[in-house]
Structures are given as structure tokens and as C-alpha cells.
């Protein structure tokens, strides 16, 4: 089978309308967020945490998916790897999203209040870790690590477009091997810092894995949606049903994985019934939060589970596209459910919640069009590309 491997054959820009829409959404999002900070800074700061965690999911998750492809020796995802690489570029924008939050740490994190910590033996014991300077330091370190790996992966990958050197693949495989443990720790710390420490008395050892399951889902869904959209618009014409099936199957697997982790956490805490642990679930089971909790189960598990259960549904592009969007929304809901009960004891919803989703959608569109202008949409130099394009189950 002959594959066009000339670099030009694969570089295509997104239409200007997409870029324009991206900018409009981005600016609108920023405006809403700014307004939110003016009107209700505390609430906006919590929304900012959600926004940050969401972006971190998509960005770091995409870097992870790139690394996973290398380390797992997967071929089916080679033709679409660039999408993950592009989305991975979002890690560079993480500080921008996080920045406003840093000015409102006091509103969000209970442990930043020195007088509270001094009066609370438990929090005092955690103060070496839950410390503003250390928090920022961790953020910076994690940002550097993610950016570095993203940079190295993409640099080698793009270099390969011209050199076609299989050694670059070998280097990336080794890098991916190093990245995996680093990613595990950094993502866990992100989850602990940004989400778990919202309720500083509470802790759960599985929390990092829980956030990881959502992260992979979010990154995968974002990529899936973009890939299908590009395929439908003629950007990736050579893709076969088998590749989409793999995306769908992976999505289905991680939906189950998320449910498995979430249920394990719940069952163990419910069963032992220790007040120090149950308090976290109980605050999510009263004052209206119980409806959000139920909604989360339905939205994040039940519906996507049955929607993607059969073999055919995983190859149905329309359904896959819908489910990708659906799961992105579910992940947002998941983060909302994780973060917002700390903000208010009773469930509440406000326009400020829209700021970051709009902003982030715009951001993704802008970043994508920027990247697509400068890069090949397909890693034309990758030695596995031919196999990837002819991948059959």
C-alpha cells in the first residue's frame, strides 16, 4: 500500500473561521472570568481550580498518551499521534490558567490560614507539606517536568518528519519509560495539591489514581473528538474503522476503570465508616449535592457505558464523537463534584462556571490551529506509520 510520505502532503491549516471562533471563545472566556473575579472572587477562584484541573487533565493526559504509544509499541495510534502532541502543548499554558488562582489561594485553601493551622493539631502536622511556598514550588516543578517531556517528545517526533531516523523513536521510547513514573508522581501531587487539599482533613490513597482515570478519559476524548472531526473534514482520510474502534475501546475501558476506582473508594470508606473519611462523602450527599452525585454516576458511567458497550457502537463515528464531548462534560462534572462542595455546603450553580469551559474550548482551538499551521498533521517520518495506517484488528 502506498502512503504519501512527502511532508507537504500532510500539512494542512485549519480554516480561518475556526481560528477566529477560537479567539472569540477565548476572549469571551477571559472576559467572563475577569468579570467573575470582580463580582465574586471566591467563587471564581474555585471555578479556576476546576478550570486548571481540567486543562491539566487534557494537557498532561495527552503527553501521557504520547508516551504510552511509545512505550506500548502501539501502531494504530501513530497516524493520529500528532493530535495528542498538539494537545500536549497545552501544558505550556498551564501557568496562565493557574496564575489568577495564586492570588486567591486564601479564599480556596483552608490550610493557608495560619491561625487555623495553629489551632488545629492535624493541620499543624501537615504544615510542612501544605505550605504556600512549597505548593508553588511543586507547581513550578511539575510544570517544568511536563513541559520538558512535552518538548522532548515533540521535538524528536517533528525532527523525524525530515530525518526519518528510527533512532528518534528509540530515544522517545526511553524518554517515555522515564516519563511514566515521573508522570505518576506529578499527577498524583497535582491531584493532592489542587483537589484533595481543598478539604485538608481528608485523605485517600487512591485519590491520585482517581484523578488519573479522569485525566486519561479527558485527554482521550478530546483527541478522539478532534480526530473524528478532522477525519470528517478530510484532514485524516486514510484512517480505518479499526483505529476508531481502538479509540472507542480505550474510552470504554477507561470509563469502566473510572467507575471501578470511584466505586472502590466509595465502598471502602462506606464500609469502614470512619468519620474522618466519611465526612467527604457525606458533604457530597446532602443539601442538593446528592443529586449531583447521582448525576455523576449516570453521566460519567451509566450512559457512556451502555452507549459504547457493543462492538459496532465503538466504530460508529457519530456516536463516538457525541460520547467524546459527553465524557469531556462528565469530567468537568466530576471536577465540579470534587471541588465545589468545599465552596458551598448546598449545591449552587452560577454563570461563572461557564467562564473556564468557554475559555478552554477557545484555547484548544487556537492552539490547535497554531500547531497545525506549523506541523505536519501526521508524523510522516515515523517508521511505524505504514503499519499504523494499515492497522487491522
Amino acid at each position, binding site marked *: 500500500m502506498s502512503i504519501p510520505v512527502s511532508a507537504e502532503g500532510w500539512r494542512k491549516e485549519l480554516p480561518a473561521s475556526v481560528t477566529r471562533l477560537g479567539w472569540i471563545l477565548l476572549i469571551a472566556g477571559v472576559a467572563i472570568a475577569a468579570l467573575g473575579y470582580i463580582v465574586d472572587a471566591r467563587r471564581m477562584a474555585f471555578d479556576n481550580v476546576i478550570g486548571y484541573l481540567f486543562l491539566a487533565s487534557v494537557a498532561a493526559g495527552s503527553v501521557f498518551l504520547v508516551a504510552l504509544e511509545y512505550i506500548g509499541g502501539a501502531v494504530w495510534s501513530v497516524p493520529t499521534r500528532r493530535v495528542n502532541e498538539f494537545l500536549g502543548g497545552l501544558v505550556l499554558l498551564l501557568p496562565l490558567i493557574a496564575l489568577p488562582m495564586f492570588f486567591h489561594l486564601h479564599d480556596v485553601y483552608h490550610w493557608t490560614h495560619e491561625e487555623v493551622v495553629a489551632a488545629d493539631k492535624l493541620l499543624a502536622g501537615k504544615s510542612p507539606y501544605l505550605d504556600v511556598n512549597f505548593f508553588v514550588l511543586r507547581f513550578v516543578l511539575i510544570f517544568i517536568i511536563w513541559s520538558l517531556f512535552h518538548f522532548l517528545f515533540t521535538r524528536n517526533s517533528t525532527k523525524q518528519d525530515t530525518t526519518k531516523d528510527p533512532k528518534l523513536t528509540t530515544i522517545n521510547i526511553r524518554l517515555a519509560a522515564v516519563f511514566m513514573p515521573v508522570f505518576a508522581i506529578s499527577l498524583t501531587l497535582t491531584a493532592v495539591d489542587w483537589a484533595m487539599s481543598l478539604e485538608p482533613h481528608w485523605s485517600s490513597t487512591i485519590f491520585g489514581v482517581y484523578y488519573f482515570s479522569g485525566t486519561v478519559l479527558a485527554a482521550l476524548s478530546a483527541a478522539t473528538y478532534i480526530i473524528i472531526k478532522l477525519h470528517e473534514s478530510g484532514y485524516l482520510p486514510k484512517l480505518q474503522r479499526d483505529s476508531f474502534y481502538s479509540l472507542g475501546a480505550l474510552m470504554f475501558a477507561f470509563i469502566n476503570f473510572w467507575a471501578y476506582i470511584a466505586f472502590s473508594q466509595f465502598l471502602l*470508606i*462506606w*464500609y*469502614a*465508616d*470512619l*468519620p*474522618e473519611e*466519611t*465526612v467527604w*462523602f*457525606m458533604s457530597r*450527599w446532602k443539601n442538593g449535592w446528592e443529586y449531583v452525585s447521582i448525576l455523576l454516576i449516570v453521566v460519567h458511567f451509566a450512559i457512556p457505558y451502555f452507549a459504547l458497550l457493543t462492538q459496532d457502537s465503538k466504530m460508529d463515528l457519530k456516536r463516538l464523537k457525541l460520547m467524546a464531548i459527553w465524557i469531556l462534560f462528565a469530567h468537568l462534572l466530576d471536577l465540579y463534584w470534587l471541588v465545589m462542595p468545599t465552596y458551598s455546603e448546598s449545591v449552587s450553580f452560577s454563570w461563572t462556571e461557564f467562564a473556564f469551559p468557554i475559555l478552554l474550548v477557545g484555547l484548544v482551538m487556537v492552539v490547535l490551529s497554531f500547531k497545525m499551521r506549523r506541523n505536519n498533521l501526521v508524523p510522516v517520518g515515523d517508521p511505524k506509520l505504514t503499519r499504523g495506517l494499515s492497522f487491522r484488528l
Partner: protein
Amino acid sequence: MIAPLYDTRQKEAVLLSWIQGKDSYKETIYHEYLMAHWEKTLFPSFNTRTEFKTFWYSALHDGVITLDERGNGDYRFKGEALASVVPASFQGYVVGLTQSYYIGDGAFANNGWLQELPHPISKVVWDNYASLSTKTAKDLGVDMNDRIEITLPQGKQIVPVFIQPGQADGYISIELGYGRTNAGPIGSDVGVDVNVLLPKSSLTGSRILGGATVAKVAGTYVLSTTQEHHSLDDTFVKDLHLKREVVREGTLLQYEKDPNFLHHEKRELFSIHTEVEYKGVKWAMAIDLNKCIGCNACVAGCNVENNVPVVGKEQVAKGREMQWIRIDRYYSGTADAPVASHQPMLCQHCDQAPCENVCPVVATNHSPDGLNQMVYNRCVGTKYCSNNCPYKVRRFNFFNWRDHVAEGYYEQEPVNLMHNPEVTVRSRGVMEKCTFCVQRIMEVRERAVEQGIPLKGSDVKTACQDACPATAIVFGDMNDPDSEVAAYRKHNLGYHVLEETNARPNVTYLAKLRNIHSENLT
């Protein structure tokens, strides 16, 4: 009081029949003699208007009579009398021989229940030993379970070593009553005979003997204890019972200033699920740590009431003692001046018992009156309940103990007659634990039903409560607001052990108050 078993005669009856001549023996001979003696000597001095029989029966019923005896009225402490007891100075090591707490001078050596009662302080069972202070042990170069030879002019004996924090330096105390060679299947060859150290002249005199020479001898002898020993200066485990709020203590001064001082850091307890409601009687116990003297009478009482098996020394060493209630002893402070705390620990009959959840066969579950009940016949013995019990008060029959100990001694006639017919005799492979003397509860309940009156919690007395000489244990219905136990539960000093596990125990402890202010002990 038992009627003669087999073809036996009471020793008094034997003596009497010798005095009164041939064919005078009958079973009641001593009884009649005793009654006649009382009628003649004691009864007239009472000068009551009742006849002798009434007097006799009421004396028997009460168990005591009050004699009009007055001393000389001088109750001052006579310091000089000490001189006759304790010599002014000792040479070398001093050996103190004391009666055993439980088997006395050895008369009860054949009673397994008593042999297996842990020593109130050292928690050693089935043995006597030379108790040394930490410094003395260091001087002698011995450690726990080493053996030393004690030589006195009148004899010598090799005794295992036990290091006892708080013991006076240079002083070695050993219990008498052990080392009997012919005491029956249980009591023979238990411990060492230190009677050989007693001078003939001192059999009735002082048992504090100076001038002993002590030398370490080769070999070890392993003592069995029911509680592990942790070094008092190991910061890792030191004072854990206080840090974990297992034993809570305060000072009298503290209490006077602020009666609620225990509960300032209020722990909020709630459940993720709806909690079970108990209407009607709900059993609960309260234990006042101020009153508890750590004597183990409750343990003995429980053993007898509930057919608790004897397991023997080796099994205790393995950690398989079966007592349903135990007295935990904790040290705090330093090895030279330790502070000991006692805490009776038994099944807490938790409302949200972690043991119940995990039993696969529902052999342990909750009764409508709040008892954590154990169904022996359903139990398959997974031991999961014991693992999940925060208090580790469940006991497992690793063997058929009665068959296993002393060649089935406890299964033979007539020893088996001593088992309480109201309580199941457990066999191997089943878990058991404190039942709050459910058989006694049922008895009171039956009586209440029979008489058509409501069950009154305070009518039930558990065996440990009955046995407690200090009335440290209170039992009753916590839903009865007037009951003593309800008052204890509401007491300022009341607390539950390991509250944070949310097990909701039904045994309330009253924190110990130490009056250390006046003695300036801190």
C-alpha cells in the same frame, strides 16, 4: 460447699468420729457438732430474743456475724515495731518471698484457672520468677528469661529472671507456692520451689532474707506473659496508651478546676448510613478506672461463670489465652519510677461492631437489646472478626482446649461438673468472647416475664461485676435514664476507648484521676 463425692469423708468428720468412738460416723456429724458449739458458746453472748435456729440461719445467710470485740483503742502507728520485722541492714542481695497472689501457699496449685490468671503487674502466668529492677538486672548482667542462682545459708535455688520496672534495687522478690511435685495433673511441676530458701526458724517469721548471693547460670527459661513487654525508654512505643487515649487520666486538681477537661477536643461521631435505633432495654457497662485495683477477680469470676477454658503455659506464650476479660497494664514514666495504669478490657459490644460486618456466616450479630452476640454453632472459625476487632477481645479455640490441657483433665468426671450448665462448652474451631453474661440477663428476663413486670436493667449483675471487690464495674440498661450506668455514661470523666474507629462501644470508662498534687510526685 459440696456434698461428699465418691466415698469420701470430711476431715473434721473423720476426727470427730475418732473422738466419739466407733460407729459414731454419719454425714452430718460435723455439722451437728458445729451447731451445738455455736449454740453453746456464741449464741448466748448475742443475747437476742430469737431462738438459735433463726440466729443460725441468718448467720449462714449473711455469711458474717458481728462480734462485739473491742481493741485497746490505740490506733497509732508504732514505728518501733518495724525493727522486729525488718532488720536494720542487709548484706548483699535481699530476697523477699511472698505468697502467690492466686495460688496462695500452693494450696490452689491444681486450679488451672488460678494458675492462668496473669500476675496483676508482671502479667506472668504459670510460673514464679525472680523479680529484679532494671539496674539490678544490669548489675547482674542478666536479661529477661535468663536464670540466676540464689544462694542463702539455708539453701539455694535456680530461678528465672523477670525485670520489673519500679522494683527496689538490690531486692529480689519471688513468689512461694510453686514448684510442687505432687499437686495433681495441673499443679505439679509448675514453677520452682523456693521454700528451700526459707530458714527453718523463719517458717512463721520474716520472709525478707538478706545476705543472698546471686549468680547468673547458663541457659534460659521462658516465662509466659499475656501482655508483651515494651521497653519504657523506647520512644517509638512509649506512652502509646496515653497518646492513643486508650487510658485517659488526669489529676484531681485538673478535675476540680475544670470537670469537663477530658472533652474539650470534641470528636464528632456520625455514620454514613442511617443508624440502628434501640428502643427498650439496651445493655451497657461502665468501668470506673479510679476504682479498679487490677486484682483480676473479674477475670476469675468470668472464667468460672462462662466456662472459659484453661490453655496452659505454652499456649499463653503463643498468645492464645482465652480469658474473656483481661486487665491491661500500661506503664508510663521511667523504668525507675514507672506509673502503672490498669484497664479491664472486654468485649465492648459496639453498636457498629466491625467484627460483625466481616463474619461471612452471620455467626456474630446484634440482638435487639444491643448485645453483640456470638452463635457458636454457626461459627466456622474464619477468625476474621478477631482481626477486625480494634480491641482484640475475641478468643479463638485453636484446639479443643479441654481435651488438650493435662490429658483431658477438664473433660473428666467430676471436673466437668464445675462447668456452668447455662453456658455452652465451646469446642475447637469456634470464636468466643464476652457475652455480657447473657445467661444471667436471660434469667432476669425470664423472671420479669414470669412476674409480668418490666425488665429492670439493674437487676442483672454480670459475673465480673459480682466479683469486683471495688465495685468498679456497673452494668445495666442505658436507655433507663435513672440507672446508674446511664449516669456513668453521661459523666464528665466518661470516655470510650478508640472512639475514632466509630465502633460505638457500650462500655464506658471513667478516666482515672491521680491525686498527685498533694504528693508532689510530678
